[in-house]
Structures are given as structure tokens and as C-alpha cells.
């Protein structure tokens, strides 16, 4: 591991207590929140929903233990960008273990993602897929705490 999550996860990209009541709505709201954060245009927001949905059609990114890692390529970014959403209520996400999901770690990579980006994707999925992460991530009540917790966990576990 030779990258630090703090390069890709800015404090503005974490959202504790995010409200969404279904998988479909969650992907739409996540896409719209991310587009706001990145200040990308409306077309990019639409394409982001498409991209996240298309990936889910191939198989759910719900990796189990209440965590999902939706991801796709996006023209809105030139560097990978990670966004965290702790959901107020757990939702059905067709997860691999069948359990509802209450934490989303969304990762966007540029259209021409390279091997470094793909490695980051694998590291993020592996790290946040670790059951140890679940309790501390969900316990965070403020963006500051969630941001720091995520970065600490990544440094320790990745």
C-alpha cells in the first residue's frame, strides 16, 4: 500500500446520518450529493446514477456485514474520489450475505482508470469490508469524527 486515503477522502466527502429508504433512492441521492460536493454539472449527476446502477446490475456491491461499496467510472473526476455515507436506517441492498446495509463507501475513478486506481479500489473494498470497521464507522456522529475514523482505520488495516 503506497497511497493514503486522505488524498482521496476529503472532509467534505463524509456524511453521517444520511437518509435513504431504498437501494434505488440511496444510489440516486448518493449520486446527487456527490455531484454537489464535486460541483459537477447535472449531466454528470445523471451519468453517475447510471454508472452506479449499471454496476449493481452485474451483482450487488453489498459485501456483507451491512457495508456496500458502490463504484463506477466517472467523467466528473480526474483522480479517484471516495465518499462515505452512514445511513440512518438500514436498507435492503441485495447484499451477498442477505443482510440490510447501513454504510456506503462510494468510490469514483476516472474514465481512464489506471492500475494505481484499481489498486486503491481493491484496498478500499478490502479495508472497509473488514468487520472490525463496522462499529467505529457507524458510531461516528459528526463528519469530523467519521472522516478521522475512516482515515485511521485505513492506515491501520490496509
Amino acid at each position, binding site marked *: 500500500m503506497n497511497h493514503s486515503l486522505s488524498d482521496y477522502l476529503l472532509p467534505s466527502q463524509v456524511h453521517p446520518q444520511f437518509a435513504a429508504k431504498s437501494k*434505488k433512492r440511496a444510489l440516486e441521492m448518493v449520486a446527487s450529493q456527490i455531484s454537489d460536493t464535486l460541483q459537477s454539472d447535472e449531466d454528470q449527476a*445523471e*451519468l453517475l446514477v447510471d454508472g452506479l*446502477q449499471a454496476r449493481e446490475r*452485474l*451483482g450487488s*456491491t453489498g459485501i456483507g456485514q451491512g457495508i456496500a461499496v458502490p463504484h463506477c*467510472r466517472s467523467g466528473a473526476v480526474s483522480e479517484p474520489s471516495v465518499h462515505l455515507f452512514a445511513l440512518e436506517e438500514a436498507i*435492503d441492498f441485495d447484499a451477498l450475505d442477505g443482510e440490510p446495509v447501513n454504510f456506503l463507501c462510494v468510490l469514483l475513478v476516472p474514465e481512464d482508470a489506471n492500475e494505481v486506481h484499481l489498486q486503491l479500489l481493491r484496498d478500499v*473494498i478490502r479495508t472497509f469490508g473488514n468487520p472490525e470497521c463496522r462499529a467505529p464507522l457507524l458510531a461516528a456522529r459528526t463528519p469530523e469524527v467519521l472522516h478521522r475514523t475512516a482515515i485511521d482505520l485505513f492506515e491501520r488495516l490496509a
Partner: protein
Amino acid sequence: MKIVILGAGQVGATLADRLAFEQHDITLVDKSRLRFKSLPDLDVRTVVGHASSPSTLEAAGVDDAELVIAVTNSDEVNLVACQLARALFRTPSLIARVRNSEYLTSDIEARVFQPDEAWTDTSHAKLGRLWVQERISPEAEVTDYIVKLLGQPGTLQVSDFAGGRAQMVCVKAVSGGPLVGHRLVDLTDHLPDVDTRVAAIYRRDRPIIPEGNTIIEHDDEVFFIANRKDISAVTAELMETDKPYRRILIAGGGNIGSRLASRLEGKYRVQLIERDANKNRELSERLNKTVVNTGDASSPKLLEECGIQDTDVFCAVTNSDEANIMASMLAKKMGARKVMTLINNAAYVDLVQGGLIDIAVSPEQATIGSILRHVRRGEILQAFSLRRGAAEALELVAVGDAKSSKVIGKTIDNINLPDGATIGAVVRGEQVLMGHNYIVIEPNDHVIVFLAEKSQRKLNDIERMFQPSTDFLL
């Protein structure tokens, strides 16, 4: 998956039942409260309201649904409901029942509906096109299906894969067929130039996993897969050669009967029986060669006049199950070589198939495949429900690469499928390869899997096998 079904008629109710059974979260909408009362106990949420009204769609929770299926009995309502769902709630998948065949000609379809790419990438969306991802027409699908069965005499079921390059068929073995009483491996000696794979054998309704040493018995139901051109050669090994069909008698001149007659009249000698004299005038004008008779298909006198004893296939396709069954039994008794019967009620299918009725055709069976495709995860191109839902055949795309896929780069004997599942064939571009153990799966291969005893768990396992790992980037 959250699914909203608009219209609780025959098609909607059957779909709801079927999808709820597969553990999906179903909401069923109909404008008539009475409709719900007449339905058996379904594990679904019900909403009363007009399918094409925004407030009904909202009340039904369309905003949370990943799939909306509009199957009311009005094409227009179905099409409008889909537009509303897309415009108001950006529904990711929309299926509509479209009965009018004009919409379904490829020219009109290409100009009226959004292209497939638009569903995964809205930048491909075209102005003014309708948002309906899949158009289903039970009548057209039943018609296609019957035409296909007639084209492969002797088969009980036919499923097309990879655009028809490969077919899976079900044949009932009859003593007298050269392979009956012999081991499966002997097929290679009998037909050295034909590559085929037996996916399953059902003996007295129980599946047995075919092996080289398995001896085919009289009355076995054999499912095999082969290149389409080889199907008749394999069928001929399992029964005394069924002569090609020539004379067809259709009972019922409704939506299906008239479509069927016009599809068949160029190739076969077709007669049709319809009760309604007014309808018959219309039919006679529309059909060129079909002989149209007015009367009751369950009248022995009329059947006699239509030459029932010289009829190769009697197809009963009126809109009444009971009428179809009675007419078919009568026709068979009076000497029709084969009878095919349209039956909506699944309980009747079990009752009659294999008795006097040779083939029961169920509209649900013909339609469910195109819907299952959208419900299942992974790149599933087709899902055929076989043996009244007890078995299933799937066409799956091997997505990803050797790193992210559990099947790519492996030989078939190293792929760990659930019990009772077999890989029948692999379609690679134009090539159809039978599922021999040594075949190595490559990226984008279409893999045809047969599941003999279906269970939700086994289906999930198969889907998972073909899904790329979570870190696969699309």
C-alpha cells in the same frame, strides 16, 4: 428487489405470485378492488388505483422500485405508466405489455423506443422516444413458441439460446428410437458428426444426472442441447422418426389463433375453427390460405368435417382453458396425431399433460423468461422456466477476467456449480461449443446452464458464480 406490477389480471397476478416466491418485494396495483378479492393469497402489497395516474404510482412506491412491470389490459395505459415512472421517478427498468403487434415490428420498435444503451447511459437517450426497456406480448410469445415446436416435430419444449444458434429441447423417449435401451455414450457412435449434450433426464418425474453409462429408457424425458441444425438428428435417436407436420387445425380465432394461422399458412395446410361468425368474416379477409370454419371446436361433427383423423397437429388456443382442454381431448380421441393446448391455469397443466394432451403451452411460461432476465443479477441474457417452473435453463455471460471472475480461465469440470446444474453449451461469438469438461471459459462467453431441480438457493449460487468480484470495475 422492489418491484411494482401494474395490472392484476391473469398476467400480473401470475407474475406477482412467481416473483414473490423468489423473495422479491412486490406491490400489485389494480383499478378494481374486486380483482384483489378474487386472487388467491399472495404475499404482496396491494394498491387500488389507475396505473397511469401519478398519485397511484407514488402510493405504490414506484420511487423506491428498481423495476416496474406494466401489464394492464390496455397498451396505452401501460405505455403511459412507463413514461410517468421514468419522468417522475427515474425508474431504472421498465417493462410493458404491448399487445398491438404494430409496435413490435423491428422498424417501429427501433424508432419509437429508447435504444438499449440509454438504460445504462442516459447520454445515449434520444429525444421523444418512449422509455420502455422490454416489450412483452404474451400472445406473440405463445405464437412464436408454438411455431418453434411445430418446426421441431416430436419435441415437447424448445428454448433458443444465443439468437437461436443453439437450442435446448425436451423429447420423450419412445421405444423404437435407436438410442432407447442404450447407453448415452452410444449416441456418439450413432451420430459421429453431431455434437450434443444431454443436460438432464427425467424418469417418472424425477431428475437423474446423465452420465455416459446412463441407459435411456422408454418414457424418459430427455433434455438435450445442440446446434439448431442437429436437433432433428438427435430427436430421431429418441423416438421413431416423427414425420414433418403438414396439416394443422387451429381451434380459436382470437389474438393467438389468428396470429398463428398467418404465421403458419405459408408452410402448412391450415384450417381454423372459430365460433363467432363476425370474427370469421374478418379472419377470412386477413388470412390468405387458411380455411376458416364457423362453429364449436368441441363438436365431433365439425371436427370430422375438418378432417380431424388426417390432422397432424390440433392446436387449441381459445381464451378458455376448459374449452381448450375438452376440444383437445376430443380431437386426440378422434385421431389427431398430436394435440397442443393453451392452458393459463398452472394447476390444469399438471393435470392434463402426458395424458391425452401431448403438449400444454402456458403463456406464463412463454413470458416469464423476458422478465426474469431483469430481475436476476449479473449478465443474464435469458432465463427459461422449464417443467412448469421445476427446472430452469439460463444463458449467462461470463463477465470480467480471470482475476475477477470465478468461471473465466477454468475448465468446465473445475467450475463448482450447485448439485443438479450442468453446463450444456458455450457460445463463443458464432461458435457453439458443447459443454464438454475440457472446455475453458473465456471472457464474454455465453454459458448455457441447466438447473434440474430449481431452488432459490441454487439459482443464487449460479448467479453468484457468474458475477464478477466486488472490486470489478465496469
